[in-house]
């Protein structure tokens, strides 16, 4: 059984950006960004992913990672 890990916190640390600042830039609430960061989100919209990539100056592959639990 695998899962998708969201590495937003890693990219935020690299860009030295706080959660509230990023939330404001991509126009979502800090609570929703926190859900995304902690991996509780069920899905992510393309528009959110696009905004994250734009503000964090990265590619989707830098934010999302597939983890296979069986490995």
């Amino acid at each position: 059984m695998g899962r998708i890990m969201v590495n937003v916190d890693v990219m935020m640390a690299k860009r030295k950006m706080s959660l509230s600042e990023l939330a404001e830039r991509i126009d979502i609430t800090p609570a929703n960004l926190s859900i995304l960061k902690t991996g509780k989100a069920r899905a992510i919209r393309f528009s959110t992913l696009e905004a994250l990539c734009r503000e964090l100056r990265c590619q989707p592959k830098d934010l999302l990672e597939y983890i296979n639990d069986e490995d």
Partner: protein
Amino acid sequence: MENCKNKKIKRLWALYGTFFVIVMITLGLFLSDVLITNDRADLAEFRAQQESLNLTAMRSTDLKSAASEYIFDIPIENPNDSAVMLLARVNGYDIVISTADDQKLESPYQTLTFIFQCIWVSCLVLVFVFVFVILYSFYKSIKQGTVFQKKNIRWITLIGVLFLVMTLSIDIAKYFEHQYVLQFLQGTSVEVDGRFYINFVRILSGLLILFVAELFKIGSDIQEEQDLTI
């Protein structure tokens, strides 16, 4: 969006009002029935007769006669139009059981009937209370913008289960009541049908309520999915 929410709240208030009016009418009819029955002169004579019988038990049953001779047509005089013939058909009895010795009337069926009657009356009261509660809960949920809440699902499920328990309790109480009367009618010329009957319409209503609860569960899952889509 706000306009849509206001419309929903208005519809809910209309539903709330209708339910309240139904409860009041039912209560009014019940009370007026009690008061009118007490005032009726012919019933006063009937009551006096019962008192003279040293009445200790009375069962108002809708027992169906098994023997066809007990289901007969009684002609009713029709002064307005003689061409139209009216007939009344007997399909139930009010059986009065009277004895000087109270012990002869004691039976486990009486206790069982009482227990199930208590259960169904309790369930009925709870259903009415919960319907009031759930309509208010819906009103609050619509204002908050989330109807498919876990607590709403719990209330609906509870109403459905109570409705089913109530239906079964009514039928079981009726069955035991019939059995109680039947034990006195054994060996008499009266043959009655004391079989167990289930009110399928009420059972279906209970199942429909549970079905609505299931729909709400699906709605809740969809809403959760939506909330967790960032």
